[in-house]
């Protein structure tokens, strides 16, 4: 299994390449590319959130609690007094950072469903939905942000699988096959978890932003042409445009 630094560095590297490519293809603006890079890197840390003592869980809950605190301040700033805001914001922060974290540590199991392909897709969907419904972003940017989280997540799962091969002894470690999987089916609880996640995907899709633009921008013949346009200098001049 790769460690925190490896996951962080590889996810950041992959996110930098992809967000710079999207920027160059004029799919996102420079500011959006920065957020996309950040989300891709975060996606690379998310799968280890189910490991109770990992650095990832602390980082994730720090970010989540800060984000929710800022959110509550935004929402209530026009109606609450300063004292009310401080009380509510502190309550929200402490609840998420400590109560939620402890609860999550108790219910999660490392290398459970969190390390799976459907959960990687689910995260992307959730981010796309939150981007549009909560932050009023357009469909293309919402989906790009969702895509970046899923990309980072996949990078993590692939790295874990690569690290499960013992190249010296030329054998597969016990952890092989536990990261990049489609579900868990060994016992009834695992089967229910898998079914719930697969049912959530179409449900969330029904409230997700429109996919037309992201299909054209990333997964179409035109996207491929835009990509080939930016590989080499279009005017034949190198570095002096």
């Amino acid at each position, binding site marked *: 299994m790769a460690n925190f630094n490896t996951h962080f560095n590889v996810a950041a590297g992959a996110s930098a390449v992809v967000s710079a490519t999207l920027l160059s293809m004029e799919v996102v603006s420079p500011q959006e590319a920065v957020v996309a890079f950040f989300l891709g890197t975060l996606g690379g840390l998310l799968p280890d959130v189910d490991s109770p003592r990992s650095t990832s869980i602390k980082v994730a809950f720090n970010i989540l609690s800060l984000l929710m605190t800022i959110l509550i301040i935004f929402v209530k700033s026009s109606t609450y007094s300063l004292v009310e805001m401080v009380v509510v914001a502190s309550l929200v922060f402490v609840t998420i950072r400590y109560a939620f974290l402890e609860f999550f540590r108790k219910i999660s199991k490392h290398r459970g469903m969190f390390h799976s392909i459907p959960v990687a897709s689910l995260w992307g969907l959730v981010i796309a939905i939150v981007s549009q419904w909560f932050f009023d972003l357009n469909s293309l940017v919402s989906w790009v942000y969702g895509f970046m989280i899923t990309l980072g997540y996949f990078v993590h799962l692939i790295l874990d699988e690569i690290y499960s091969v013992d190249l010296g002894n030329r054998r597969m470690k016990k952890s092989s096959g536990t990261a990049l999987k489609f579900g868990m089916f060994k016992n009834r609880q695992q089967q229910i978890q898998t079914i719930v996640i697969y049912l959530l995907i179409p449900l969330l899709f029904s409230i997700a932003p429109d996919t037309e*633009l992201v299909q054209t921008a990333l997964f179409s013949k035109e996207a491929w042409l835009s990509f080939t346009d930016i590989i080499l200098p279009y005017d034949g001049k190198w570095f002096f445009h």
Partner: protein
Amino acid sequence: MKKRLSILALSVLFVGCVPAPKPTIGLGTGIGSSTQNSDLEYGRPPRNYASAIRDYFSSRLKHPQGANFQISAPKRAYKRKGLAYGGDVEWKGWLVKADIAEQSRTGRYHSPKPHLVLFSGDQIVEDILGSSHKLITIVDK
């Protein structure tokens, strides 16, 4: 006690995320007073909206030269704020759909990108990339 505190904190957290009630919208029954109410709510339709859209995008597109516009008729619509900002109705007016085909930096034409252009009177207040948005409701079908 710990459990009660957690429940209280959770309730406070989610109260902030509950969207505001939907607005009552006069759909215009054809009877004089309803139409008038509706006009008061949404204002009159924008005049010269096509040229307003071309002017607006001439300074916003990356490659405005040679851009092709396909502009549809205005429709009454309203838009909510994102739930993170309270979810209230922030705009009511006329929405115009515009498909804009722009050239890339190599001179190749992209396929047209849909935009939702929001008007208050004759003024453009916002444009949104895409043919739909979850926070926008088009009243006229």
